[in-house]
């Protein structure tokens, strides 16, 4: 039985383990709106059992803002790891289209600094200050839903929407970072992020 015939069986007997590598294109879109911010993320997920996936996502963050009133720089990395479960019935004609429920554990570490800060104040006068480089880390959990569809020839596109809950972040930081890579903007313990991906699936056999 060929691989494609096995997949069209639409049951465990037709299941074939595979690896899917992906690229988050949200960062490229965000950079169109905010050229100073750069996010790059790749992902790897493995269907270790029929409809059961384990995924790892890794990314880099780089921010360099230079304006008349401020200069802010940040750089770091993040990781997310967790399971996905497909809840969509897999039809023989589209066996790789998925609707996934996802859980993730995330970690991020970054260094940031603000060598020039000017805070305007119409009464007291403009106040100039700076913040030296400091490290910052955060841990969080995520839950959400994602959708992946095969365009053809093992190429997929998909989007995911996840709610996030911050579990831990660096205490006594002199300055809260503008953005925690993989989590989102700071200021709240919860967040919601939308991602767009393209993938390539590599069957094991």
């Amino acid at each position: 039985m060929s691989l494609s015939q096995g997949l069209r069986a639409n049951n465990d007997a037709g299941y074939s383990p595979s690896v899917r590598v992906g690229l988050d294109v949200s960062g490229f879109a965000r950079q169109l709106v905010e050229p100073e911010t750069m996010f790059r993320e790749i992902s790897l997920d493995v269907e270790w059992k029929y409809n059961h996936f384990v995924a790892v996502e890794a990314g880099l963050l780089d921010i360099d803002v230079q304006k008349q009133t401020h200069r802010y720089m940040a750089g770091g990395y993040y990781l997310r790891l967790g399971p996905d479960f497909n809840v969509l019935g897999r039809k023989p004609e589209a066996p790789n289209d998925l609707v996934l429920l996802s859980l993730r554990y995330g970690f991020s570490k970054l260094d940031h600094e603000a060598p020039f800060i000017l805070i305007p104040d119409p009464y007291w006068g403009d106040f100039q200050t700076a913040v030296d480089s400091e490290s910052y880390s955060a841990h969080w959990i995520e839950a959400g839903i994602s959708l992946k569809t095969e365009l053809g020839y093992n190429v997929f596109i998909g989007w995911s929407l996840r709610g996030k809950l911050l579990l831990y972040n660096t205490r006594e930081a002199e300055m809260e970072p503008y953005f925690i890579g993989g989590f989102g903007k700071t200021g709240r313990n919860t967040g919601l992020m939308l991602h767009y991906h393209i993938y390539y699936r590599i069957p094991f056999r």
Partner: protein
Amino acid sequence: MAFHNKPGFAFRRIFFVLSGIIFLCWACQEDEICEDITANDLRIGFYRIGQDHDQWAVVDSLRVFSLEQADIPVHEHLTSVSVLELPLNPATDNCAFVIDFYPITDTLWLTYQRETQFISVECGFTMFFELTGINHTNNHIVAIEETTTYVTNTLDEHLKVFIPDPGNGDEPQPGFTGK
């Protein structure tokens, strides 16, 4: 087989439509108004002592100036005042204001911790404050109650300032109250 008849096309069509709607909603964010989201004034509400703590009092008129810059009024000739906004000094950990209730004046001393906060790429930085101490004279102000110690870019009321109820003949004994 035509493309639209190919299996899975409906799924992909739903995907693209949903994606477009979601992306459109996400992209259509309101422009930031930097002055609004970087202004972090201390917000004081006036209340009559002995009356409902949820109902503002109305002060006929007042003016405010700081001890550090007495020649530059913060507010001048305000009338029908229920809520007063005072700018905390971002360069120091303390400041003081004189509130002139015409003709009685009171001085309010404030100490706080400062935290630099990055708002956005366009708006830059602002200063958040956490109140650590409040002292005041008692010439007209009877008492001050802290509602919240964090002074950020929200519209929260931070202090309740209690002044006498003229109907009850309440008048504070001149003096000083510290916290």
